């Protein structure tokens, strides 16, 4: 069949590929825009007409990480010359970097970024750990009402975050877990656990039972067979599940907005809150957004062969 191709089919194919390329450019344009704004000089970020090509600079990132104040009078040339390159860029913008003694005062951004990292990593480890055991249980043993239990597990994932957040907020207030890492970690484990069980069950189902049975015949206990035979076989699945859980926790907004406000606040509620009133400095906001989106973009490429299973909770595989 493939050999016999009419010229109209070939032409149609070419048009379709051209359309795909155009669509890809349209889909990537917003991402390009935020990434490029992160490297723009301040005045070009809001220029009319919009600036597409420009000389990139990293000053927005310097602004992102430092606390600054407007200068009343121009900087002393001697001080300027002695300053490192990144401080000069701040002086160029008519501001100076705030310091305590010799130490540069950092902005809140690195703290919020670290909070995101702590909460996402710990909640991922816990959710994937528990999910892997449970998935093995569901995959290998007969369980009364298995379908109902699995539906129950999945349904906890589908609850709207705000619905769960109201009672959790009240309960956390009683036990003092509001605005704490642990409080947020518990919520994210609860949220990701169902996902991790469903996805890992799909991976476990694919590991032939005969592997463990052979091991049992060879004198392993079932626990040994699980740790020495099943877990290594499931490594790819565990890694993929972990990356999905990490991205979900990393991106989560509603719980973080409600449960944290200072100490444990993560990046998603923090970044939009910077807009505030007046004229926002979009280059600095874009720099913060760019750094925040970068890990997700990298992970998407690592995950590309597992995305389908991930978004369908392991139900549809290829």
């Amino acid at each position, binding site marked *: 069949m493939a050999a016999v191709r009419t010229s109209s089919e070939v032409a149609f*194919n070419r048009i379709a590929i051209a359309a795909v390329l155009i669509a890809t450019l349209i889909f990537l344009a917003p991402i390009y825009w935020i990434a490029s704004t992160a490297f723009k000089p301040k005045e070009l970020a809001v220029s009319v007409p919009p600036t597409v090509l420009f000389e990139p600079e990293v000053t927005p990132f310097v602004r992102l990480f430092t606390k600054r104040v407007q200068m009343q009078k121009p900087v002393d040339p001697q001080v300027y010359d002695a300053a490192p390159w990144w401080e000069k860029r701040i002086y160029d913008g008519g501001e100076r970097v705030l310091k305590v003694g010799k130490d540069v005062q950092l902005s809140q951004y690195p703290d919020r970024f670290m909070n995101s990292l702590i909460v996402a990593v710990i909640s991922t480890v816990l959710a994937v750990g528990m999910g892997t055991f*449970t998935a093995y249980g569901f995959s290998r043993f007969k369980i009364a009402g298995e379908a109902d239990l699995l539906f129950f597990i999945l349904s906890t994932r589908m609850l*709207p975050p*705000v619905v769960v957040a109201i009672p959790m907020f009240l309960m956390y207030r009683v036990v003092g877990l509001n605005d704490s890492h642990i409080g947020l970690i518990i919520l994210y484990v609860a949220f990701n656990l169902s996902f991790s069980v469903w996805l890992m069950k799909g991976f476990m189902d694919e590991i032939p039972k005969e592997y463990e049975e052979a091991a*049992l015949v060879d*004198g392993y206990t079932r626990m040994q067979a699980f740790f020495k035979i099943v877990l290594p076989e499931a490594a790819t699945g565990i890694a993929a599940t972990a990356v999905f859980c990490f991205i979900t926790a990393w991106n989560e907004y509603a719980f973080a907005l409600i449960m944290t406000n200072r100490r444990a606040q993560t990046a*998603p509620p923090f970044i939009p809150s910077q807009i505030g009133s007046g004229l926002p400095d979009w280059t600095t906001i874009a720099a913060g957004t760019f750094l925040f989106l970068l890990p997700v*973009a990298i992970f998407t490429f690592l995950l590309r062969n597992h995305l389908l299973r991930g978004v369908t909770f392991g139900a549809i595989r290829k």
Partner: protein
Amino acid sequence: MASVALTNLDPASRAAARGWSDLTIRNLFIIPTLVFLIVFNIFPLIYSLGYSFTNFAANRSEPWQFVGLQNYRELLSDDHIWSNFVITAKYVIVSVAGQMIVGFGLALLLNRSFPMKGLITTLLLLPMMMSAAVVGLFWQLLYSPSWGPINYVFGLGDFAWLSNPDSALYAVAITDIWMWSPFVMLLSLAGLSAVPQHLYEAAAIDRAGWWYTFTRITLPLVSPILLIALIFRTMEAFKTFDIAYTMTTQPTAELIAIRLYKQAFQQWDTGKSCALAYIVLIMVLAITNLYVKYLNKVKER
């Protein structure tokens, strides 16, 4: 019942007698997860069910009173809440329809071999992996009335997408379409690649037209997976909070989840917001039930 025939291993064999029994292992592996989910998901819901019958306000210390079904009665007869549901319905229809059309369209275009197909597919999937709150934030930049690139490209002058009451909801829906069409595309591609090639060959031999092939072969075979995408996106769009909340403050774009958030954490009308949460919860569970049913159907194929 549960303890019989846990595995197809003979219970009398030596292997099964060593170490912990399968029953112990099964319980050890499954029960902690179930307990965790019950404690942190179900117990809070029971807690808030209780509060939904009171006039409790979390920011005041005065004692609350039991008010029976009053919260539910007031909510269901509140025009404001109904308008939130209407706004949500509009949003769900526009954004899910848009995602289905764009996503399935992209999948049809991508469903052929060409160089760098894998790279392009992955690039197209990027939007849905991002944080909705942050996506909402940077679309504000794109939609900016005076200097935003969207108005410049389409020559719309200083049209204020997000602060115009008539367009705010649709501006959010467009962003949602951008973000989630890739999801529909991904599922559609899986469906399309599962259509047996010989059906197309047979159709070509019979000189069937493109439209005929599409409606008689492609669509019927892909529709179960499209239905999955449709239900899943409907459920998610119904729950939408982040993207709309970060993009606009227009009352015409106040989705039910945003209304719920404001009632609970800005007006501190805790008892009533618990009742509203229950109304929303029941709706979501109904859609979830439908989703799981179809998911199992597709899985069995």
